[in-house]
């Protein structure tokens, strides 16, 4: 069975500092990979996704993520964090051909931004 691990439950960064959120997945082949953000009291918004091709993908709000097959990782990065980036971030995977387009989510990483 596939699984998704986000090792960091909380991360605190200073505004303007860089941010990296880790995501590791367990699956035999290359899955489809997603990062979603959930702002307080809001639904999930897609930041970016990786299906194939260039392993460095650009998303919205200045985020990017890099797929590393050798490490089974899909880490999310932002060079300079803004206070509005304080939110919960979820990594998700979908198995190629998975019946029902089922997404499996990691446990989330809460990002706090210090002034």
């Amino acid at each position, binding site marked *: 069975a596939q699984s998704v691990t986000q090792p960091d439950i909380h991360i605190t960064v200073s505004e303007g500092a860089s941010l990296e959120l880790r995501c590791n997945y367990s699956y035999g082949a290359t899955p*489809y990979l*997603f990062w*979603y953000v959930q702002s307080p009291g*809001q*639904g*999930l*918004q*897609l930041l970016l*996704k990786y*299906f194939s091709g260039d392993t460095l993908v650009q998303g919205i709000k200045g985020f990017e993520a890099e797929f590393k097959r050798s490490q089974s990782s899909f880490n999310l990065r932002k060079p300079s964090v803004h206070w509005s980036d304080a939110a*919960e971030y*979820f990594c998700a995977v979908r198995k190629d*051909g998975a*019946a*029902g*387009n*089922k*997404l*499996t*989510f990691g*446990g*989330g990483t*809460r990002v706090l931004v210090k002034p």
Partner: protein
Amino acid sequence: DTAVSQTPKYLVTQMGNDKSIKCEQNLGHDTMYWYKQDSKKFLKIMFSYNNKELIINETVPNRFSPKSPDKAHLNLHINSLELGDSAVYFCASSPRLATDTQYFGPGTRLTVL
């Protein structure tokens, strides 16, 4: 303009009651989903429907019954509510079943007292 909408946003009810949550998408998508997010923020799929047909039922108790009157709507009815049902329920949709990105609604926070 709202793409995926849910009503109500908050729902507080007593144990044993029956309640429904409604979801509508105006994106013209074929596929809709229900997810449950527990108190630890863990998100897990419950159901998916494609063109009104049930595709995934992720071992959810049969007290939960989704209903899709048309492609644009997927409602969730819950019978005999239990304390453990307290969670945030998210509806989502995607253009097709196979490979597409899912778009999420704002969530419904259900509190069972």
